[in-house]
């Protein structure tokens, strides 16, 4: 329904976008044989940017051959450029008969310390330079050389901030794609770890890598991921969340159908289950597809601690998932419609607390939930120094004052606070946000129809979840449809020696090979 509405509202915009696609495909610029012409063209291509460095060099015994070295300051390792490129070109005392010979010599011998590559057109030369490579042009030759001297300031590998564990690897992904793939490669030292790279974004040309284990991941799944990524037509990719919205199965669902993580060990586990990871340059968040509901309630620690504890923690998390979805709604329903369900002393004390409160329980619940959401949002956005102040004012002062002022009952504050805490027990933030949004309609249903409303809401959510798919895999996979062999690693975690099969819907069925 939403999708149809969307199409009606935004039809015009879509049409314009599709007509805009026609104007591609102008002729590629060739490299001129005259150096000054190339120099001007490159300068023009970059709009004379301040970080563009052009160096004219003379090479050979008598300085007969002149060359042009181009790189972008800050994207290249300065020492590498100086030693591997400039010194090799400038210091050589070779006797060359022609520029052509000099070029071949440079390509095959002198510059070979830096993974040199040949390019034919000026466009690809410029593209390589803006990618952080160091370009070399020789006067009189209509081809260019590109040396890989990339190296830039990057955050060091440290503990992932959004997924903290007590036990387990402390390494997290960083913003550089190559570092991230190396983190995976170090964990899976096999040639069967395949990494396919593509560029997405017409202007940004962001590198995106599809990572999977050949022979474990289903070839059809990999092809599907490839297709979906190739269909993306945007000018820039900012973060993997941007890709996620373009390739997910159900863009109008409050539930995420793609798992994102900062932890290489989590990605490694998923890869070995036959899933596919998508790494994006510029963000530490990797995407894992297909993702199922139970994966969102799984923390890496479940696997590292002993299985009793892992299983208990999972049940606890599932319980807190339901609490964060339904507790305020249940409280509203019970206090408004079904007081008889509570033991008499509790009913009396709740009724006494609600004595002077001017609103019905629904309004009270929505108000308190809103206050909590505002506090949470403010706590996230504030500079770290001010954070504690907000939580003290918000948590203690507002809560206490609201009760004293007779705007909320202590029981309601307790319920809302506990719900808030419970929602933080969901290990993956994207699921927790969806649930937080769904809490409001649940409260409204409970306020209008009591327990029937809560049950109706749950039924609607269940119907939606069972209809969801993530890259062809039912979202509630081991639970509905029930897959007995996968239940071992869903709500409980069986001991490691019993986890000898891959998930039924991903990967090849045979045990680990």
């Amino acid at each position, binding site marked *: 329904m939403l999708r149809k509405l969307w199409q009606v509202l935004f039809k015009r915009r879509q049409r314009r976008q599709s007509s805009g696609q026609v104007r591609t495909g102008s002729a590629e610029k060739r490299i001129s044989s005259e150096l000054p012409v190339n120099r001007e063209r490159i300068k023009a291509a970059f709009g004379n940017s301040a970080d563009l460095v052009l160096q004219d060099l003379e090479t050979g015994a008598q300085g007969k051959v002149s060359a042009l070295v181009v790189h972008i300051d800050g994207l290249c390792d300065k020492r590498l450029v100086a030693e591997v490129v400039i010194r090799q070109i400038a210091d050589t005392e070779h006797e060359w008969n022609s520029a052509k010979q000099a070029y071949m010599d440079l390509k095959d011998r002198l510059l070979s310390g830096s993974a040199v590559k040949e390019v034919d057109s000026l466009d690809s030369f410029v593209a390589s330079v803006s990618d952080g490579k160091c370009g070399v042009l020789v006067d009189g030759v209509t081809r260019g050389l590109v040396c890989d001297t990339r190296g830039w300031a990057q955050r060091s590998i440290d503990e992932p901030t959004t997924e903290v564990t007590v036990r387990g690897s402390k390494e997290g992904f960083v913003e550089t794609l190559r570092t991230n793939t190396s983190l995976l490669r170090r964990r899976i030292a096999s040639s069967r770890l395949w990494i396919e790279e593509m560029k997405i974004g017409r202007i940004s040309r962001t590198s995106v890598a599809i990572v999977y284990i050949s022979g474990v991941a289903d070839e059809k799944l990999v092809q599907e991921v490839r297709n979906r990524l190739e269909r993306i037509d945007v000018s820039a990719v900012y973060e993997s969340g941007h890709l996620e919205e373009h390739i997910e199965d159900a863009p109008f669902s409050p539930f995420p159908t793609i798992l994102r993580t900062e932890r290489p060990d989590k990605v490694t586990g998923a890869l070995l289950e036959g899933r596919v990871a998508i790494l994006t340059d510029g963000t530490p968040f990797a995407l894992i597809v297909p993702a199922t509901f139970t994966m969102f309630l799984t923390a890496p620690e479940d696997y590292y601690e002993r299985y009793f504890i892992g299983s208990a923690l999972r049940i606890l998390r599932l319980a807190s998932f339901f609490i964060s979805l339904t507790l305020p709604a249940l409280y509203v329903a019970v206090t408004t419609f079904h007081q008889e369900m509570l*033991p008499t002393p509790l009913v009396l004390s709740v009724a006494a607390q609600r004595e002077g409160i001017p609103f019905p329980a629904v309004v009270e619940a929505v108000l308190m939930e809103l206050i909590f959401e505002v506090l949470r949002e403010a706590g996230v956005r504030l500079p770290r120094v001010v954070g504690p102040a907000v939580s003290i004012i918000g948590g203690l002062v507002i809560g206490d004052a609201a009760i004293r002022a007779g705007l909320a009952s202590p029981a309601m504050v307790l319920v809302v606070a506990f719900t808030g805490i419970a929602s933080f027990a969901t290990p993956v933030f994207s699921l927790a946000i969806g649930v937080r949004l769904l809490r409001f309609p649940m409260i409204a249903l409970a306020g209008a*129809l009591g327990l029937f409303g809560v*049950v109706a809401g749950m039924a609607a959510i*269940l*119907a939606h979840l069972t*209809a969801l798919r993530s890259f062809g895999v039912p979202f509630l996979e081991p639970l509905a449809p029930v897959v007995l062999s996968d239940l071992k690693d869903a709500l409980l975690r069986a001991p490691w020696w019993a986890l000898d099969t891959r998930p039924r819907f991903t990967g090849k069925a045979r045990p680990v090979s």
Partner: protein
Amino acid sequence: MNKVEGGRISGRQLAAMLILSRIVPITIAFPLITGIEVPQDAWIASLLGMLLAIPFVLLVVRLGLRFPHKTIIEYSEILLGKCLGKLVGLVLVLYWIHTAATVARALGEAYTIAIMPETPILVFMIIMGFLAANAARNGLEVVGRAGESVVWIVLFFLVLMFVLPFDVMHFRNLAPVLSRGFRPVAAPMGTATSFFLQFIVLGMVMPYLNRPEDAARFSIYAVLVSGLLMTSLTVALVAVFGPTVSGLTMPAFSLGRMVSIAQFLERIEAVTMGAWTLSVWIKLALFLWASAVGLAQLFGVSRFQPLLYPLGAIVVAFGILSYESYTHLQIFHEFRHFGIFSFIVALGTTGILYLVALMRRSLSPGVRR
């Protein structure tokens, strides 16, 4: 294979849907208890009714296996010819719509009587009709999966309901056994069987099983599980309330009211009601799906999805118009109305189809027409 519905369900999902469908009538007019002459013997009626249902289920399965990938609507046309076959199909679809309407009305009545007397009955019926139509629109797969995940919750709460009041149970209430012979047991037994006759919806679901040969096994599981559950409920009810149980309006909820554990868990009937609501949802979705697909096949419509919301509305309206009051609903479920009606429609149609199939010798295995 017909393209109206493309889903595939497993045997376990089929069993889950059937179990949920069968345990829906525990509230409205618990048919084995309300108005029965000798409540002490209700459990015998329930057990025998369950056993009687097994041959019927096998009959439906056998018919279905002879026409692989065909629904009962389609093969009735093959067996009886275009005119008569469509008539039988129409009767079946109307029967399913009527079943759905009754279930919807029962849900509304249960809520307005037991929990929320001030809310208009239409509110519950419309919301549940919408939810069920919405689930059914996503196809049989979604209904099956939802059923599979809901069935555990429902079974858990039902078992809780008849186990927890153990402290007030007096099994002496069950004596004497068969004090007045078999005669008063016959009618409630027929009622118990007639609820199982709703399993004729199997004829609609069977072609979409991923392994049709499992149909017999899993539908008999469903009969046994739900039948034994109902029997245990009757035993618990009579043990708790004694012979006066037949006068209760909604015996299952009265049972929930008796629960009191550790001075904390008291009167769980609202929770039981919630679990029961989930099973109503699945049953409604299943029967709405069956009628929509049936209608689509009868009239050669290529998609059944557009039929569901209108059908949901029809079911709600039908539910309102069919019964004047709760008492009317209860009286309808006595054997002389509901039982005979179900026997004629369900057993009659399958019986005719089976006989014709026998006569046309198309029952020999492997013959596809």
